[in-house]
């Protein structure tokens, strides 16, 4: 509206009311955001250089000592490795399953280009876990995964005479149980997302490809996937953020909050544990600072990779 050639706002009444309006509308949201979001991030950097321990203790400056200690902290690096694994496996598993189901729902019908019967019903059911709180899902699966015949999954195994699986008690299995629950909850969202994308692909493209004798597999890889690529990338970034954000499922569902034997712990759990169970505020903040840079690196890589040419249709 206004530009540089106009007189400064205080010279002119309408410009003054306009400026007053802008400031009035921005003041509260910006203030809240600065106090509760920006200032904690900024403070994290200075607290990370202190030996602050205990709620009422005085912080003392220790420089980079916390960061040096972090280098040798095996539990922390285990947590980082788990988040790294999740960053790759959770999007991969979720996207592959979701693309498969979305394609079946939209092009799995008897005539090849139409949806299956009951597609709407399946979408409604698949999406439901998404609206449940992660903490609730964690408690639910804690019961499903029980290690004896009272567990939903172990009961049929034991009825068949097999050994029960320690879904959460076996350090070699627990991480995969976490991954399974994360994918279980996420798939429906991406089925709905990709279905919406697939619905906007013109029918003629499928018909034409089919007349050329394309099989369903070719239809998927040559028509659907290239035209859906933008949405898939958005999904990848969302899931990547979610993978870095994992906390409740680990903290609530696993033994010892990330156990057994640190086999499921993640970065968020280690920060929480150090800050609010050990009260090592300086050390926990140092972890936050390191992870801040990991997150920035992820964001940069994600933005770089997503700058791929679009297919117009």
């Amino acid at each position, binding site marked *: 509206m206004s*530009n540089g050639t106009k007189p400064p706002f205080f010279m002119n009444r309408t410009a003054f009311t306009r400026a007053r309006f802008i400031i009035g509308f921005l003041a509260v*949201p910006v203030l809240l955001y600065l106090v509760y979001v920006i200032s904690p991030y900024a403070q994290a950097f200075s607290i990370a250089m202190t030996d602050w321990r205990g709620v009422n203790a005085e912080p003392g400056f220790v420089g980079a000592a916390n960061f040096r200690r972090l280098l040798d902290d095996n539990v922390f690096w285990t947590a980082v490795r788990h988040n790294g694994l999740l960053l790759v496996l959770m999007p991969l598993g979720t996207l592959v399953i979701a693309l498969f189901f979305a394609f079946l729902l939209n092009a799995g019908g008897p005539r090849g280009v139409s949806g299956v019967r*009951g597609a709407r019903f*399946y979408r409604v059911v698949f999406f439901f876990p998404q*609206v449940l*709180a992660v903490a609730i899902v964690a408690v639910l699966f804690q*019961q499903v995964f029980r290690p004896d015949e009272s567990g939903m999954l172990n009961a049929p195994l034991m009825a068949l005479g097999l050994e029960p699986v320690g879904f959460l008690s076996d350090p070699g299995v627990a991480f995969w149980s976490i991954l399974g629950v994360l994918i279980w909850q996420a798939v429906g969202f991406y089925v709905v997302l990709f279905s*919406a994308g697939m619905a906007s692909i013109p029918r003629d493209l499928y018909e034409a490809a089919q007349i050329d004798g394309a099989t*369903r597999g070719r239809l998927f890889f040559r028509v659907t996937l290239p035209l859906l690529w933008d949405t898939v990338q958005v999904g990848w970034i969302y899931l990547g953020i979610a993978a870095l954000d994992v906390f409740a499922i680990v903290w609530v569902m696993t033994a010892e909050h990330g156990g057994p034997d640190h086999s499921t712990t993640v970065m968020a759990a280690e920060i929480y544990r150090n800050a609010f169970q050990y009260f090592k505020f300086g050390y926990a903040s140092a972890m*936050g600072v390191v992870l801040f840079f990991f997150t920035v690196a992820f964001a940069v890589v994600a933005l770089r990779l997503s700058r791929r040419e679009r297919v117009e249709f």
Partner: protein
Amino acid sequence: MVSRTSARTAEVGLTRGQVRERRRLRLGPLSGLSHVALVVWTVLVVVPIVWTFLASVKSEDEIFGSAWSLPATPRWDNWARAWDQAHVGRYMLNSVVVVSLGTAGTMLFGAMAAYVLARYRFRGNRAVYLLFVSGLAFPVYLALTPLFFVVRNMGNLPLIGPLIGLDSYGGLVLVYIAYSLPFTVFFLSAFFRTLPQAVAEAAFVDGASHSRVFFQIMLPLARPGIVSITIFNVLGQWNQYQIPLVLLSGQAKDKWVLTQGIADISTAAGYDADWAALFAALSMAILPMLIVYTIFQRQIQAGLTAGALK
């Protein structure tokens, strides 16, 4: 190439119906398999939830017996115990209070900021917008320790301190609003930018003030976007677990939200835990979501996926 051409010539001279029939035969068996795959995933989603509901009316012995047995007689007293003794009723009420205030505040302040940033040009506009949007990339837990102390220090303010400090609804609500702003501002400013200028211009000519144009013209026009993002924020805040865990301590159990309360029943539970009540509590947490989702599933799906499709 050869097979493709031959497939095409083979279809020449056939009626439309016959061509269809051929395609159906070629793709036929797969469509049967697709139903199998879809049914398998439906079972994976539905069974754990139905199993939880069943367990919520089992006796303790039945729960520790075989997992797939049905309850002999439904024990509704499990639900009564969960509601009263495990305080699920209290936690649910707390969640309703905090999420109502949190979402209302988020929508009001988010819409105000988004509107100004989307439709007014002024120095620093871009910087403020980027400041908000940069918050999208960073998980809350990175700054968890300082956040705890920020809220604690707010508690020391004169007069309003006790209302917005640790262990208060107000503190949690303000933090929810602040952390919901990045996505809300990002989404709504994109939405406000698409609205036509003509109506607003006409109103300005008629002498309407800036805020009047916002509340009476632009906000109603932005209704579809507001609805989507409101659903997004209600669910996001309802499902939050880590922030209440930090800000509402064990000394303020009467203010705990639902996720916190249910997780606590499960993690703090030792050998003498009331497992039947735990299943009942779980069912109580799931049931309202199931009802709301069944009624509003179209809006909820649209609301949650809207951000990804922008």
